[in-house]
């Protein structure tokens, strides 16, 4: 599988990959996959994380070794196009294993993520990136069990769960 490291400095830094492919970067020992066409949000995230010492390794499409969802980042780009999550207090209903939560969590000020599936919530808690742990709370519960003290969210996300 061909792979190369995106230059993080110099004239080529931040440029979209010239061939169609996903960008995967490791951060704090955890692989995260970014975007095929490196939209503006993805590039900003990539450069921000590269300054923290992560390595960017683009992969060509078709090279997935494991199951993955939205490897090309289309869903991620769409939700960021619709919503500016900066500083928002987010309620996510049907969060599952946190797959979508990781896509916007770094921009939000706080996330309360619910799912009735306890196993998925456990997986989400275990997989939560270090930098999100202080502000993301996963709870195994139905939305109707949410206490009124938790109200006042800027945005609610119904994640394939209506």
């Amino acid at each position, binding site marked *: 599988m061909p792979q190369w490291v995106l230059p993080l400095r110099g004239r080529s830094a931040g440029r979209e990959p010239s061939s169609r492919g996903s960008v995967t970067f490791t951060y704090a020992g955890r692989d995260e996959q970014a975007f095929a066409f490196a939209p503006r949000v993805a590039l900003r995230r990539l450069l921000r994380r590269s300054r923290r010492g992560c390595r960017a390794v683009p992969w060509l499409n078709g090279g997935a070794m494991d*199951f993955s*969802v939205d490897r090309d980042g289309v869903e991620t780009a769409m939700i960021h196009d*619709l919503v500016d999550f900066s500083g928002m207090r987010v309620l996510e209903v049907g969060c599952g294993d946190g797959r979508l939560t990781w896509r916007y969590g770094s921009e939000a000020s706080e996330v309360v993520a619910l799912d009735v599936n306890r196993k998925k919530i456990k997986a989400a808690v275990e997989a939560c990136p270090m930098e999100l742990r202080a502000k993301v709370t996963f709870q195994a519960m139905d939305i109707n069990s949410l206490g009124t003290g938790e*109200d006042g*969210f*800027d945005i609610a996300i119904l994640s394939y769960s209506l």
Partner: protein
Amino acid sequence: MHALNRIHKSLKPDGLLLDLQPQPKNSRVEIWQDGRIHRLGEIDQREDHLEIEAAMEHLLSFEQVGLFAAERQAFFELLEHHPSVESWQEKWAEEGYRLIAEPELLDSAHQLLRAAGGELVIREPVRAALLRRLDGDGSNYLT
């Protein structure tokens, strides 16, 4: 209380609701291999379409009674990548999804992957709808 009613209460005035929902259309199955895409056909999801349409109607009814106002929407395809047909079947079984596909489609997928590797990709049509909370009192609506 219906979930949408509780969500309405949980939002600030002028808060937003982002609803990500599959569209009532069949997902398509492809094999990606060596830069080529083999389009194998669709999965039969007609049973799910009824539930999806009911959910969309429900959301629309909340707009019609003045609890939410539609702002924007976008349509896209959510791609699932699987290393094998078995991975796909296991994952969907784990999620509780029904996998109804023609045997010929599954056979073709098996053969292609066995012959030259690659991955199986499911294209699911999705709608992302952004709505704004309005100040209507939702407490008496649909308990």
